[in-house]
């Protein structure tokens, strides 16, 4: 029987066990792929920004197109006030994108398929956006929970719903990415297992399905990174331009 489809998500230690106090911070395969993704991003964008040619070469064009893509995304959703957060959203988008994409290579580990990673990112965004909102608007930021034009009778209910929806933002943000990544990779693994168990006679069908799924998963990898970044922009927009 094929290996457990969940075994691809196992985290194991690489090298010695490192402990600070009671916490185990050993270098794992997850850490390895975080480092690989970051280094890949840095190499590509460093090469892309090294020379300034009037006619950009391929890698420079790649870097500049991603820069324009992200900056357009931010200005479209959060306006010009979000410019100071550009570098953060750019790094976030690139990090998630590269982690997703590296996960598409066979025998690699998908960092973003772990709820703890996506949740830490989402929680950081949530806390950061909340702080930005309170710094920009003071207690007026609480008006976010009181939509205008709502009948006074419904107001308590609406406020409760708004607060719940606000508090569930980090969960929805993190679970969306994590669940997409995990489901896609599990499905590919399951179909891969079918190829082996059905053998040379019947294995072609799941194999072709697996090939198609690979394309779909690459699309999903990009799309989820995009959704993650654009939702961050939308939350930031709520905090920067309070209009309710």
């Amino acid at each position, binding site marked *: 029987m094929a290996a*457990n489809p*969940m*075994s691809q*998500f*196992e*985290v194991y*230690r690489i090298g010695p066990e490192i402990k600070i106090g009671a*916490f*185990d*911070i*050993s*270098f*794992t395969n*997850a*850490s390895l792929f*975080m*480092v690989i*993704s*970051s280094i890949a*991003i*840095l190499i590509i*964008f*460093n090469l*892309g*920004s090294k020379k*300034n040619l*009037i006619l950009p070469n391929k890698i*420079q064009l790649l*870097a*500049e197109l991603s*820069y*324009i893509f992200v900056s357009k995304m931010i200005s479209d959703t959060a306006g010009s006030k979000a410019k100071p957060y550009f*570098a*953060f959203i*750019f*790094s976030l988008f*690139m*990090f998630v994108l590269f982690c997703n994409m590296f996960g598409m290579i066979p025998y690699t580990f998908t*960092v973003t*398929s*772990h*709820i*703890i*990673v996506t949740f*830490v*990112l989402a929680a950081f965004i949530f806390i950061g956006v909340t702080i930005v909102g309170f710094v920009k608007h003071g207690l007026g930021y609480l008006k976010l929970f009181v939509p205008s034009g709502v009948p006074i009778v419904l107001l308590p209910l609406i406020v409760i*719903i*708004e607060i*719940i*929806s606000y508090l*569930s*933002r980090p*969960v*929805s943000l993190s*679970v*969306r990415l*994590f*669940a997409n990544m*995990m489901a896609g990779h599990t499905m590919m693994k399951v179909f891969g297992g079918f190829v082996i168990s059905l053998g040379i006679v019947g294995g072609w069908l799941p194999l072709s399905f697996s090939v198609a799924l690979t394309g779909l998963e690459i699309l999903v990898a990009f799309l989820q990174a995009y959704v993650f970044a654009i939702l961050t922009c*939308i939350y930031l927009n709520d905090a920067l331009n309070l209009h309710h």
Partner: protein
Amino acid sequence: MIKKIFFQTIFFNFFFLKEVFAAESVGMPQLNPEFWISQIFWLTITFGILYIILSKLILPKISANLELRKSLIQENIEAAEAQRKDSETKLKDYDEIVLKSKIEANNIFNDAREKVLKNINVKKENLDKQIDEEINKAEKEIDILKKNAPRKINKIAIETSSEIIKKIIGAEVNNSSISAIVDDLSKRNGNKYYGN
């Protein structure tokens, strides 16, 4: 939007809870907290370093590159526009010069024609005058000749008549009587002979 997120959240929470219960039996590595601290630690480190390097070193460079190229292209477009305008004015000047020189050439041609015509007229007049003078002179000479002709003819006629008379008659005839006859004849028939 918020409503959508709300329902999505509920849905995903439900999904997530189901996964939690499933994890107990099958074993989801994601829910094994053994390496959570390690993952948080390494995520913070790598993402922090990535963010710092991107925001401090790489993104400003890309932004500067883009700005530089944009301004360069803008400058080039402006320069091209200026050169286009320049060439347009030059073309206009050229057209003007061509037009002016055409008019000038036309003027020169007209002048030359007039001059030539005047010369021709002057010469023609001179020639006409000369011809008139010559004609007048010739007419005067002819008049003189005409006036002199009857006298000479009369003289010849008298001489020949006296010779003829001498031969025929053999006697000398008085010239004066012959000349009287000739004069009388020439007076009578002069008009017939000289056409005056």
